[in-house]
């Protein structure tokens, strides 16, 4: 049974593409055949974050318009055999995505044996974002502990509950399963009362917590290199995403990176 997962948030810059790249890579690392689709038509970036930008020949829009076969547009990752990327186009055409076309591509991916189809949503709540979430079975709502991000996530939860295939299918279909992923979290700031805590955001949004990704330099460094952070297990971000993937695949993992790390004298001095 294949699963369609949307990574969404409403607000831009909170870590949707980073999360899509890391979650797709992490799922593929467990041997499951996985594809990450970039829905940000006109502003593709997933290819860059995953380090395959120079191998893009055809894109999602070419496939939708019948200009390329799905198989030729898919980019196979050079590190993980089971990982694939379907890049967005760079030409701006807001009508490029339509529910029927997107549905056909997703159906074809399922026929090709993909276990997980990860849809990287663009920011906003317009067509691209609605198309990314339309066929989803699960949603990862990426949120920063910050007022505008939390409010936008709440709006997106409303859309997930109303404007998706599962929402419109009637009462016999289970609604989309939405998970909260809190990113750029700083336990030290939370402790000082300068940042919303995990508990605050959970109470406001009312969906289960998938994980907390700490604020870290490793995110920028990994996108500089085009290597998803999860591939370098020494970083806290990689550890956090590995936990997220395990939880997402149904395993119990205790939440980490919520409390401030205890640092010794030298750690304070040189950290």
């Amino acid at each position, binding site marked *: 049974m294949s699963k369609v997962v949307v990574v969404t948030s409403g607000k831009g810059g909170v870590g949707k593409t980073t999360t899509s790249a890391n979650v797709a890579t992490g799922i593929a690392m467990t041997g499951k055949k996985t594809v990450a689709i970039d829905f940000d038509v006109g502003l593709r970036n997933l290819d860059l974050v995953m380090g395959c930008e120079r191998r893009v020949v055809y894109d999602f829009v070419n496939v939708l318009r019948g200009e390329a076969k799905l198989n030729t547009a898919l980019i196979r990752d050079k590190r993980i055999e089971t990982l694939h990327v379907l890049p967005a186009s760079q030409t701006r055409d807001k009508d490029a995505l339509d529910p029927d076309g997107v549905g056909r591509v997703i159906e074809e991916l399922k026929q090709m044996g993909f276990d997980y189809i990860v849809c990287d949503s663009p920011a906003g709540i317009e067509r691209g974002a609605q198309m990314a979430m339309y066929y989803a079975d699960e949603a990862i709502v990426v949120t920063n502990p910050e007022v505008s991000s939390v409010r936008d996530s709440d709006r997106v939860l409303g859309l997930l509950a109303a404007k998706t295939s599962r929402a419109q299918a009637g009462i016999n279909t289970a609604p989309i399963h939405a998970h909260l992923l809190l990113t750029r979290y700083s336990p030290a700031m939370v402790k000082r009362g*300068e940042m919303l*805590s995990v508990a605050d955001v959970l109470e406001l949004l009312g969906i289960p917590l998938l994980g907390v990704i700490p604020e870290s330099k490793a995110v920028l460094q990994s996108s500089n290199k085009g290597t998803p952070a999860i591939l370098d297990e020494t970083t806290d971000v990689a550890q956090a995403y590995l936990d997220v993937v395990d939880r997402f695949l149904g395993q119990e993992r205790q939440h980490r990176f919520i409390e401030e790390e205890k640092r010794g004298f030298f750690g304070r001095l040189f950290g």
Partner: protein
Amino acid sequence: MRFLDYFRGKPKSASLAKDRLSIIVAREHTGGRNTPDYLPQLQQELLAVLARYEVIDLANVTVNVERSGDTEVLELNVVLPDGTSIVRASSGRPATV
């Protein structure tokens, strides 16, 4: 500085953020979602009509759509300037979801 703040009992910015968000999230859940887009315009136009007869502040006119069971109720509340009399009107129709 932070040491002094502790004794002043100044509210921390995170708790302000949470309070502000609690209000806005609650409001959007009751009124913001699934309500027709024309409500703000309706409110403006009703105000224009009322202004021909009474001096009324926009803040004293509220237009709401409420849902009870299978029906939607469009409710209009106007507080007249003296503050004693309230005009209420409502109309119902089957909900279309």
